[in-house]
């Protein structure tokens, strides 16, 4: 399953909940969700822990717009809009965590 998060981890609990529930698959961070993938943030350890079982991606245009593209955690893969589409088609289902 592809899990999509579009809110900051400090505004909503969507990321925490999906990390608690999801066992495998991929996470794509978009919009304000990209802040969760920044080095030195409070969410970094949680995300690093999850990367043992989940592949994590960020939507690069959203990271660039927010001036955090240069501090994305190692091992998180930036994708463009085409990559977003590829991720959707590569998984049998997806869930947007509101």
């Amino acid at each position, binding site marked *: *399953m592809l899990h999509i998060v579009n809110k900051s981890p400090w505004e909503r*609990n*969507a990321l925490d*909940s999906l990390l*608690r*529930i*999801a*066992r*495998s*698959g991929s996470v794509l961070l978009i919009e304000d969700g990209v802040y969760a993938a920044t080095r030195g943030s409070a969410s970094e350890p949680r995300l690093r822990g999850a990367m043992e079982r989940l592949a994590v991606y960020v939507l690069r245009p959203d990271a660039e717009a927010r001036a955090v593209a240069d501090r994305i955690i190692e091992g998180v893969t930036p994708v463009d809009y085409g990559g977003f589409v590829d991720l959707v088609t590569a998984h*049998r*289902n*997806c*869930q*947007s*965590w*509101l």
Partner: protein
Amino acid sequence: MDTPDNAGMAEGATRKFMFVNRKAPYGTVYALESLEVVLISAAFEQDVSVAFVDDGVYQLKKGQQTKGIETKNFSPTYRALPDYDVEKLYVERESLDARGLDVADLIVDVTVLSAAEMGALMEAQDVVISF
């Protein structure tokens, strides 16, 4: 003529739909909207599951009294879901525990799942719609 949009919904094809509720009932319109979509989907004879996670578990809390906020109390509708053949209701145990609730506090019979079990159930769906 090709009708690709209908190909997946061919007659007799039943797909597994899960509706995931993560919001408390009256602070936003999500819970009510979700309930309406669940009822609509049941009319299409799909295999419907409804999950309650995080503040979504508050939707099922017994004893809602909404007269004072001049809002319709829609919680009795959850009890009517079996009449629409929606019988698969799942609640995540961690969300209940975090809120000091247990199944005796809920207005309907549910299946309680661990977070990992809930994750596995989500994986098994054809379509997951989150509220």
